[in-house]
């Protein structure tokens, strides 16, 4: 490979001020222009915009350049943008290198330091670019099959959507029934549909769909493989003959829809567990669903309720230093999103059907954000629900009441009435317990899925890739990601389904070619690389027949290789290297960084 | 050659017609343009002497401050004026000399 002939084009972005406010972009351009191997150096307001991309395309087409360096934001944002532009110019998309002069420079340094560092990073990227070779993406066969984990509303909707596109689906549910949280709900906020009707409509479709296989009451033991070719081992619960069935599912993509559970208050939280009159929202919904009350007041355990107090944000919106963390140190700092509307929905039902049951709602903020939800709030005011507001650092207190009619007394500093201390006698207290993710740490560690500090599964980027994991071929939908209501969970399901369908529709998948490659001439079959390899199945020693003699040689399974370079680091013969990230490239990058010619 | 001339003629007549059709709009636009030209010239002439803030300029050339700022933002965008030091709560503006015409104009 000739090292001298490469003509690098360097394109430096202003990022509309994000970069140019701190980096003297024109000065960087002047320095870059003089660097060895640089054929052109240009600047632009937004490199990712069409005029920016056109510049690269024109230079490539006119033959001025044959390697591209873009200096702009983090490559995670725009790598594909520029690769596609290069493809449009008819060139190989892998002749491109990126210098991150925003996150790594302008957002953290100012003035001359910023300008110098930007120059150095570009010098090093240019040094690397000179040694870039055209590469071909790795093509792997993909099984036209998706596995959905979790059979709540999100899982069911994802399964139906994908199956209706002609892709086979397996749905795995750990409990004996499908439906998840929907099984616990009654009338849904804000429009009052019956949860059971919604569920039935979905079940009718899914149970009759030939393309969908359902396994309930089972556990996932192992997940192996890679995009297009995953394999899941599941075991079913022991049946009547005490036999657990083991099943292996070969699948092209996986969707996590493992949902959420209701927060359970700790012993004594607002009197929970100490007074039988303190219940959760889930309990209240259950009571309304059973509907055993007759007459004009809500009846709970045979008792007519006269004054019920509903406390919002229990187990949600917790603030460090104010709220008690759980034993594992976890604080639920997030808002559970669904409880405000669900509380008001329950209040309205009670006020409409049981006019003798009075209701006090004690809240921090009423979050009826969604379509049809503000009406619930207005309706509750019309229904004479009394609203009282507390601050996070002055939570209502539950004490024993003095009369037998009202076993409890709720004390609150009401910020709607001059922050006065108020006392409300109550015979029922309902805690708006929020949503917590179901524990899927086992699955997460099997598949290396990221979990956020809030303990929910973490997507790649909330706007750019909201239903994807960094592990290609694994998606997420519904409340395993964050609290959502049913409609939002179904939207997320549709979004995950559309990504999975697009991924599998071609029957094959193209992966980045940044994987290990063995130089067969140099390899002596030491096997040091195989020992160092981090990914099972990515690298092995095989016997090759060369001119009648059997030699041991290392062989890479490209689709499995992580491209981490652990092998390259240990090979005594320097016979194995990473495409696109070769040792020589690193050396040249380091040389460029330490040679002090490029800073001021 | 002849056809080109003919085309030119045709275009000329068509333009004339169009001008006739848009007479009122054109008149309004021209008068706006003339005022703008005068206003901006006044700002630039004043700035030839010294850098100044919006209230200073506006007081001197007798133009409302919001209008002065509107022009200033525009002149800056098209590269004719640059922003300088801050004085109190206001920035000073000065002519971009040598006036590089519209290089690196931003939208």
């Amino acid at each position, binding site marked *: 490979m000739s090292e001298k002939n490469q003509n690098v084009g360097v394109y430096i972005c202003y990022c509309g001020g994000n970069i140019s406010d701190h980096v003297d972009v024109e000065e960087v351009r002047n320095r870059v222009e003089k660097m060895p191997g640089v054929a052109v150096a240009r600047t632009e*307001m937004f490199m990712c915009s069409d005029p920016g991309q056109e510049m690269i395309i024109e230079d490539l087409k006119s033959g001025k350049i044959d390697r591209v360096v873009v200096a702009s934001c983090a490559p995670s944002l725009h790598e594909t943008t520029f690769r596609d532009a290069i493809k449009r110019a008819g060139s190989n998309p892998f002749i491109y290198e990126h210098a991150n002069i925003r996150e790594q420079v302008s957002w953290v340094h100012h003035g001359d330091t910023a300008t110098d560092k930007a120059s150095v990073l570009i010098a090093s990227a240019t040094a690397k670019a000179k040694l870039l070779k055209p590469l071909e993406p790795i093509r792997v066969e993909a099984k036209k099959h998706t596995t959905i984990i979790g059979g709540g509303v999100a899982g069911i909707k994802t399964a139906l959507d994908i199956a209706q596109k002609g892709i086979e689906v397996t749905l795995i549910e750990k409990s004996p029934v499908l439906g998840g949280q929907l099984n616990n709900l009654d009338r849904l906020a804000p429009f009052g549909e019956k949860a059971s009707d919604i569920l039935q409509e979905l079940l009718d479709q899914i149970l009759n769909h030939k393309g969908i296989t359902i396994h309930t009451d089972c556990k996932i033991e192992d997940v192996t493989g890679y995009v297009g070719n995953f394999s899941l081992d599941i075991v079913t619960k022991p049946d009547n003959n005490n036999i657990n069935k083991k099943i292996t599912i070969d699948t092209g993509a996986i969707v996590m829809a493992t949902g959420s559970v209701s927060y359970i208050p700790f012993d004594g939280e607002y009197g929970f567990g100490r007074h039988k009159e303190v219940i959760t929202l889930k309990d209240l919904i259950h009571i309304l669903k059973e509907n055993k009350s007759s007459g004009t007041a809500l009846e709970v355990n045979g008792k007519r309720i006269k004054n019920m107090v509903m406390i919002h944000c229990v187990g949600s919106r917790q603030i460090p230093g104010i709220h008690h963390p759980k034993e594992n140190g976890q604080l639920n700092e997030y*808002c559970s999103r669904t409880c405000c509307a669900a509380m008001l929905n329950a209040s309205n039902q009670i006020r409409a059907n049981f006019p003798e049951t009075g209701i006090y709602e004690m809240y921090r903020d009423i979050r009826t954000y969604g379509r049809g939800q503000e009406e619930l709030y207005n309706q509750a005011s019309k229904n004479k629900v009394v609203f009282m507001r507390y601050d996070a650092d002055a939570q209502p207190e539950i004490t024993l009441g003095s009369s037998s009619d009202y076993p409890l007394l709720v004390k609150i500093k009401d910020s*709607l009435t001059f922050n006065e201390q108020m006392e409300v006698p109550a015979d029922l207290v309902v805690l708006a317990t929020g949503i917590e993710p179901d524990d899927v740490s086992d699955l997460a560690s099997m598949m290396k899925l990221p979990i956020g500090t809030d303990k929910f599964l973490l997507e790649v980027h909330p706007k750019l890739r909201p239903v994807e994991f960094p592990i290609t071929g694994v998606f997420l939908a519904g409340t395993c990601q964050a609290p959502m209501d049913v409609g939002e969970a179904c*939207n997320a399901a549709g979004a995950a389904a559309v990504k999975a369908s697009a991924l599998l529709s071609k029957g094959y998948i193209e992966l980045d070619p940044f994987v290990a490659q063995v130089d067969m001439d140099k390899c002596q079959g030491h096997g040091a690389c195989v020992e160092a390899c981090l990914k099972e199945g990515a690298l092995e020693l095989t016997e090759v027949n060369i001119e009648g003699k059997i030699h041991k040689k290392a062989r890479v399974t490209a689709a499995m290789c992580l491209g981490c370079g652990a092998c390259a680091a240990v090979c005594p013969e320097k016979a194995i290297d990473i495409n696109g990230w070769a040792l020589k490239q690193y050396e040249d990058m380091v040389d460029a960084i330490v040679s002090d010619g490029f800073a001021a | 050659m002849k056809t080109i001339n003919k085309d030119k003629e045709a275009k000329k007549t068509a333009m004339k017609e169009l001008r006739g059709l848009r007479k009122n709009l054109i008149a309004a636009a021209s008068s706006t343009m003339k005022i703008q030209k005068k206003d901006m010239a006044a700002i630039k002439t004043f700035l030839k002497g010294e850098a100044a803030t919006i209230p200073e300029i506006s007081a001197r050339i007798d133009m409302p401050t919001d209008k002065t700022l509107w022009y200033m933002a525009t002149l800056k965008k098209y590269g004719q004026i640059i922003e300088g030091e801050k004085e109190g709560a206001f920035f000073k503006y000065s002519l971009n000399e040598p006036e590089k015409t519209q290089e690196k104009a931003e939208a």
Partner: protein
Amino acid sequence: MVSTHIKNFDTLVVGGGIAGLQTALDLGDQGYRVAVVEKDASIGGKMIRLSKVFPTLDCASCITTPKMSAVAHHENITLFTYCELNSLDHDGSGESQGIKALITQNPRYVDPVKCIGCRQCEYVCPVHIPDMEQGGLSATKAISIPFSNAIPQLPIMDIENCMLCGQCEKACPTNAIDYFQKPEEFTITAKTAVITTGFDLLAVKDNVQYGNGRIPNVIDSLQMERLLAPHGPYNRVLRPSDGMEPDSIAYVQCAGSRDKSMGVSYCSRVCCMYAIKQAMLLSGSLPLADIIIYYMDIRAFGKGYEQFYQNAKAMGIEFVKAKVARIDKGENGSAQVRYELQDGSGIATTDHDLVVLSMGMVPGWNPEPICPVSKDSDQFITSIKPKISPVLTNMDGLFVAGAAAGPKDIVDTITESGSAAMEAAKFMSKSLMEN
């Protein structure tokens, strides 16, 4: 010839905001041929005009441009910008329930094939007009490219303000100026359509309580986005009346929302979060300024939003529980905010250098009489199955996503768009199977 201009696609997407772009990409990636019809001169919708976006505080341009560019270069997607939708309905009767749309291409007075986007025409044009892309706070020319990362990079001529001086034509290196361009009508037929026409803010000029837009230094939230954007009208935050760097900035929440008498009765859903975001960005660029948010409830419900809100409080942004009753002109360019404290302690007034109105959101498009799709009492397009599939409308094969189906932030818009693309794809594979 004009009226027989028929173009055929699998899906017609109406509206090229982030919802439309995401829908088009999710369909195009599955091999469907998509037309995106946008009324503005550029795609990108509100999002490309924002500064940074909550909750991650990414720069809006940086995450919108790649989507815009991906759509523009997608082999299965065709863009029609600066177009007017005249009608949208089922095509024919009975069996073949396709979609048919009549569209007018508005004249730019520039030949899109010849133009290379060099902006020479804009530089030479002598007429300045308020740049609405910058909230009217600075000027552009009678012929101009809307903004630097617009797609497509084509200027539009504003003939209302053009004096036909001929300078642009002379300056144009490619002879692309065409003073005689006419509107062109064409028809799009498709199997499905997705409505992604987004939202508009309520106009300040309609609110007498806020001074009908006549009080200096009272601006709406989209104008504030421009002030905060990296290439905004002033390249920094100044108050529009005199260029002063503001020392005290107030946010009026639920401006026109949650109160029918002020505008609309529903909650506009994103204004709490964008006000907090803007306040944070302001306290970054003006560390000494006092920033006050007058609010009734803070609705920070999404993933990471509550934490964002708590961070803002920790940064020293002041949250006052109060309903703003009216705004008056104060002294020295200030605006006087009169508010009712929610703790019952009465009415108070405070002067601020700059007041930002978090105006409520209304639909960006009224289907009447263009399309028979039904609207709800909130005037947004009706979702017939808000639980199982919020993107379904009462018209077969016609779906809705994003703010066209009710106020929504970007995160929720993007997932809903994926969902709409999925429903459209299902609809098309279903009709394929039936045929």
